[in-house]
């Protein structure tokens, strides 16, 4: 029967597919539901698509809210359901967006926070270097200032008016003010200076300027937009509040990027051209050549560049030109590399090295985004230009400026890192090793080369660096402490080295040299920054002795003045790294300085976390643990974790901790020394009293131990082993009551009882079973399963059924009466089920099954070396009578329930139960006896009366009886059958 159904399954699924597609259209939010067959739906989808590509000449309107448009668009292609709701015309209108404006709509996200440096350009650029986008956020968070900032602009409301003196040009004032000069001079009277801005306010103002720019652009005030861009770029010429400069750079170049893109897109829109041989105006393809650009667009483009070339001030002129550099592609195809080189040179004119390096950074950024990755020569040029001005960083003028702003040299140099890193990374991304050698040689000529070294270390592939570690160590050593902080260099070097595999012979001198420096660092902050990295190096390349030594150093550096309190996170990473990379876990734990380091975590939560990582790390190591010292250490650590559990701990946390400790408990193995193992379990029980899961684990472990013992003696317990297994049983028996959940206790009692029985500990088994039975009434009426409350009856039914099967082999105790456990069970059942519960009747049915089995001469199964009731009583008449008595009682109970079902009109249930009972009677009862036979016939009729009993089962039952009636033993069946069917 089932097989047939099974084969029908795929057919059903095929049919189901249609309703599935309808289901989508029947969404409650859709006003009209249209049902269509799958095939037609697909067909219509197809036509829509083709018509949209056919008519692409609709007027492109750049929308300001591009996102919903594209959503709708893609939605529609994905499922046809959306076009049932809205009218078809607007649907087509949506699709009429031509590719350009669609692309524009996709990309024109004008908020300053999201600048896609050109989605297409990323393709090449991303392969080479980590995209700028990734650094953006890091820079913004790192470079902040608490100083007050100011903006001078004419495009923002608020702020106080200032009169900016228009610089008198030359010796006489022109009577014709040319259009050119107006560009970068502020219009008189409109300039407002905003003073005393916090950094957040400043960023908000910049964002406002950004919006203003986009707005001006869209309302065709392109000159105004240009002016805003220029004014923004002007802000980059100002290094007041130097610490904020990198962030300012990020904010402002975002605007410039947008400006550049606006110009580019606008020109592209203008540059619609006639394809050779066609009369329709089409927009330029992405990879257009200058020859395809119509003269008018070129003219506009040229105008842009002329305009920008006349900006008076150097910094804004350079920045704005860089921003629109992509538009050179409308004029010539060769312009890029010359333009990039020219700007590279022109940046030399910027006297302040900080402004200059960021200008170079921006140049490299836009240069990279041009997607002409083959020609990155200008980047190198930029770097060398920076090198030739490197001396300026340490000049007197800069020093005076730093003093005024109260910035230490090291943090001043740190301001250079984002820009310098970027430049060098762009350069080094695809460079061969020879470039590193070349640049190193160049850097050696500079004194104070710390900043350069730092950049080299972070930019070049760590393979290159790892192949000459000592060279770098020496270079770093020769840096003077005045400039870039040395410890950061060592840290960087360490970071490079741990990524690569170093030849063994290199490691020792490197570590010696570095550690000599690190160990002498007095400042714990600096020390930890280095130690955090170099401990990892040590763990990877050296043995436990060295690690131990370094851990010792760390401890001795951290103890004075309770310095460790400031460095918990670093200490945590140290432990993490050590745990993650150590090959020899045992020696790690036995090491002199490891546990003392953990002792240093005085903050409980972190300590617990650290301990968790250790235990967790252990689980990834193979093998069993039996070294007492290691076990001791592990127990110590596990206890810390355990002790963190309190009444307030959330369940998930408890589960996690429980799993960790259980894993640990399972790992510890004393081999054949079972006594020691048991005493460890006892110790563990004492150590982890708060976690039920651990106790459950312990009970399971002890039971396994007990079974293992039996296996070893092959069932023949000696005095010693039997004492041991009894001890095991006792362990379980006293551990179980401490658990909270009733059903786990029940389960474990049953299990422990079975194990005790297996080990011929009859008394202990009895005790367990009795305890289980006395616990049964305590079972809560509902239990939580997957977060939902469910009745516990089905669970209890299955548990007790399993219990019954065990009871068959449990011999009666001489002190108690016949089947006293069974009686106990029946008592418990009376109490634990609800009065008219069906489950109870079904349990009784099973009790009947058991009772009939109990009367057999030979039980179907036995426990080895345990004499069950069949041997004890030998099918004694008295015993059987006793059993029959119990059976009758149980039978009566079931009949009562049947009656109840009948009286409460639950006929369906009644007939099912009646049929079940009838089957029991046929199989188990002796139906030669007329009363039983009558009852049986009545039951059959009852079951058939309402026609709700399973017809298949009924048919099978009849078949069974017919088969049986052939046998001599069942010669009364034909008559019975006759009566049954004779209604």
């Amino acid at each position, binding site marked *: 029967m089932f097989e047939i159904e099974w084969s029908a399954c795929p057919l059903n699924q095929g049919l189901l597919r249609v309703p599935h597609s309808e289901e989508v259209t029947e969404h409650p939010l859709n006003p009209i539901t249209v049902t269509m067959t799958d095939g037609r739906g697909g067909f219509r989808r197809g036509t829509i698509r083709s018509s949209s590509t056919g008519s692409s000449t609709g007027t492109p309107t750049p929308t300001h809210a591009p996102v919903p448009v594209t959503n709708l668009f893609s939605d529609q292609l994905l499922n046809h359901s959306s076009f049932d709701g809205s009218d078809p015309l607007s649907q087509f209108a949506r699709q009429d967006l031509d590719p350009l404006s669609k692309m524009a709509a996709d990309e024109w996200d004008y908020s300053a926070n999201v600048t896609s440096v050109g989605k297409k350009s990323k393709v090449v650029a991303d392969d080479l270097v980590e995209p700028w986008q990734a650094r953006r956020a890091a820079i913004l968070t790192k470079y902040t200032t608490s100083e007050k900032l100011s903006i001078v602009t004419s495009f923002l409301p608020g702020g106080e008016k200032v009169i900016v003196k228009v610089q008198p040009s030359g010796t006489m004032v022109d009577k014709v003010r040319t259009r*050119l000069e107006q560009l970068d001079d502020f219009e008189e009277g409109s300039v407002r200076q905003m003073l005393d801005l916090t950094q957040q306010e400043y960023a908000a103002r910049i964002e406002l300027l950004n919006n203003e720019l986009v707005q001006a652009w869209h309302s065709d005030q392109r000159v105004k937009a240009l002016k805003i861009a220029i004014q923004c770029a002007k802000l980059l010429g100002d290094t007041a509040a130097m610490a904020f400069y990198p962030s300012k750079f990020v904010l402002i170049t975002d605007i410039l990027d947008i400006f550049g893109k606006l110009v580019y897109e606008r020109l592209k829109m203008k540059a619609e051209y006639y394809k050779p041989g066609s009369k329709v105006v089409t927009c330029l393809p992405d990879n257009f050549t200058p020859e395809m650009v119509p003269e008018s667009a070129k003219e506009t483009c040229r105008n842009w*560049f002329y305009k920008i*070339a*006349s900006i*008076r001030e150097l*910094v804004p002129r350079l920045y704005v030109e860089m921003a629109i550099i992509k538009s050179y592609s409308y004029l010539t195809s060769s312009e890029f590399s010359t333009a990039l080189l020219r700007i590279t040179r022109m940046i030399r*004119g910027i006297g302040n090295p900080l402004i200059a390096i960021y200008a170079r950074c921006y140049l490299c950024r836009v240069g990279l985004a041009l997607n002409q990755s083959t020609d990155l020569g200008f980047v190198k040029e930029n770097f060398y230009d920076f090198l030739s001005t490197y001396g300026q960083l340490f000049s007197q*003028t800069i020093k005076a400026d730093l003093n005024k702003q109260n910035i230490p040299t090291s943090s001043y140099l740190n301001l250079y890192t984002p820009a310098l890193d970027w430049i060098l990374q762009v350069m080094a991304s695809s460079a061969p090793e020879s470039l590193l050698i070349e640049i190193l040689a160049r850097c050696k000529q500079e004194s104070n080369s710390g900043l350069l070294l730092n950049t080299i270390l972070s930019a070049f592939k760590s393979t290159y660096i790892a192949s000459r570690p000592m060279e770098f160590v020496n270079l770093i050593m020769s840096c003077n402490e005045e400039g870039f902080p040395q410890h950061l260099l060592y840290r960087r070097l360490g970071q490079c080295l741990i990524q690569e595999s170093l030849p063994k012979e290199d490691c020792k001198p490197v570590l010696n040299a570095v550690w000599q420096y690190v160990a002498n660092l007095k400042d714990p902050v600096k020390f930890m920054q280095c130690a955090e990295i170099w401990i990892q190096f040590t763990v990877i390349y050296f043995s436990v002795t060295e690690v131990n030594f370094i851990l010792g150093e760390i401890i001795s550096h951290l103890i004075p003045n309770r310095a460790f309190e400031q460095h918990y996170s670093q200490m945590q990473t140290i432990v993490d790294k050590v745990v993650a990379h150590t090959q020899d876990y045992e020696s790690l734990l036995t090491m002199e300085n490891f546990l003392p380091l953990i002792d240093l975590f005085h903050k409980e939560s972190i300590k617990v976390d650290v301990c968790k990582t250790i235990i967790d790390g252990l689980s990834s190591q193979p093998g069993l643990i039996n070294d007492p010292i290691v076990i001791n250490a592990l127990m110590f650590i596990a206890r810390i974790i355990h002790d963190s559990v309190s009444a307030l701990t959330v369940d998930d946390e408890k589960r996690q901790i429980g799993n960790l400790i259980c894993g640990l408990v399972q790992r510890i193995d004393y081999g054949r020394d079972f006594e020691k193992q048991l005493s460890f379990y006892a110790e563990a029980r004492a150590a982890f009293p708060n976690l039920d899961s651990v106790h459950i684990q312990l009970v399971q472990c002890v039971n396994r131990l007990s079974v293992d013992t039996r296996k070893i003696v092959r069932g023949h317990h000696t005095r010693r082993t039997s004492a041991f297994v009894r001890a095991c049983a006792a362990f379980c028996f006293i551990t179980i009551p401490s658990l909270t959940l009733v059903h786990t206790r029940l389960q474990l009692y049953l299990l422990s009882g079975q194990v005790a029985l297996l080990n011929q500990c009859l008394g202990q088994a009895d005790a367990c079973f009795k305890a289980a039975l006395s616990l049964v009434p305590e079972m809560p009426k509902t239990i939580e399963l997957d977060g939902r409350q469910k009745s516990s009856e089905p669970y209890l039914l299955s548990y007790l059924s399993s219990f019954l099967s065990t009871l068959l082999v449990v011999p009666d105790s001489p002190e108690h009466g016949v089947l006293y456990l069974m009686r106990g069970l029946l008592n418990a059942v009376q109490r634990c089920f609800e009065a008219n519960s069906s489950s109870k009747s079904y349990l009784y049915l099973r009790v009947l099954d058991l009772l009939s089995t109990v009367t057999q001469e030979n039980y179907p199964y036995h426990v080895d070396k345990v004499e069950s009731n069949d041997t004890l009583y030998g099918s004694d008449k008295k015993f059987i009578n006793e059993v029959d008595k119990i059976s009758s009682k149980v039978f009566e109970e079931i009949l009562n329930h049947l009656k109840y079902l009948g009286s409460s009109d639950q006929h369906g249930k009644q007939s099912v139960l009646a049929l079940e009972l009838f089957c029991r009677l046929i199989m188990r009862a002796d139906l030669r006896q007329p009363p039983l036979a009558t009852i049986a016939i009545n039951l059959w009729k009852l079951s058939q009366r309402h026609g709700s009993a399973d017809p298949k089962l009924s048919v099978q039952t009849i078949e069974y009886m017919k088969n049986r009636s052939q046998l001599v033993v069942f010669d009364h069946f034909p008559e019975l059958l006759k009566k049954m069917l004779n209604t």
Partner: protein
Amino acid sequence: MAINLDIKLKRANKIYHEGEIVSGIILLKCNSDVKHDGIFLTMEGSVNLQLSSKNVGIFEAFYNSVKPIQLVQYTLDVAPAGKIPSGKTEIPFELPLKPRGNKPLYETYHGVFVSIQYLVRCDIKRSFLAKDVSKSLEFIMEDKPVNLQLQKAHSKIVFYKITPESLQNIRERTGVPKFLISGRLDSVCCKLTQPLTGEVIIEHCEVPIKSIELQLVRVETCGCAEGYSRDATEIQNIQIGEGNVCTGLAIPVYMIFPRLFTCPTLNTSNFKVEFEVNLIVVFEDDYLVTENFPITLTRH
């Protein structure tokens, strides 16, 4: 009754050379039929000279503007008196750009005292009750490419060296800080289409530098009955160095000549237009050091 009159040229950049034909359309838009007494198209090119108030008195300067010199001047009848139908009307035209007599055509130039301008003007004459309608459009005249021989004049490299000693018109030499600025201009004969290039090197300088600038100056000379006036005015000022630039490093000199405001150096009997470049180094204390370079501009 309003007439919307517009002139459009075929060339987007509006640049024409001598002997070429300026072609385009007259665009008329009106809501109803309009009567007119004729439509005329005029091509006009002239040099306007103005005397500077420095050389002659203010009043003279104001009144005695020298008469403009006509370079091109002729008028065509586009349509006889009649009606313009309502709606859009386009009238194409072609005007040859030819000098009057055998005068040369100078390039378009917008200066202070001299300006050279070329226009196409369209006039619609109306009966005396209504106003005449007129619209003019400037186009740009550029010299034709000439033969290659003249190009030899280019690439005249100029090296310079500025020291306190080399300074002229200086009052007291004692207050001058010590400095040495050297460099070169790649050529003082420049093509208008190419940027001015060269470099500046601050070899050493006692005081910090605030800014390095390039000033483009026009020198216009006008002759008139009373003699002539010669005036130098700034066209643009481009910063090439900002702040205390690094010593010993060559900073590029790079300036694009602005369109309209520059033209090939002109030397005629009535007026002259010449150009100069000033390299200005401003010290921290606003002390200026200027080096002057006369330059010759050519179109090709």
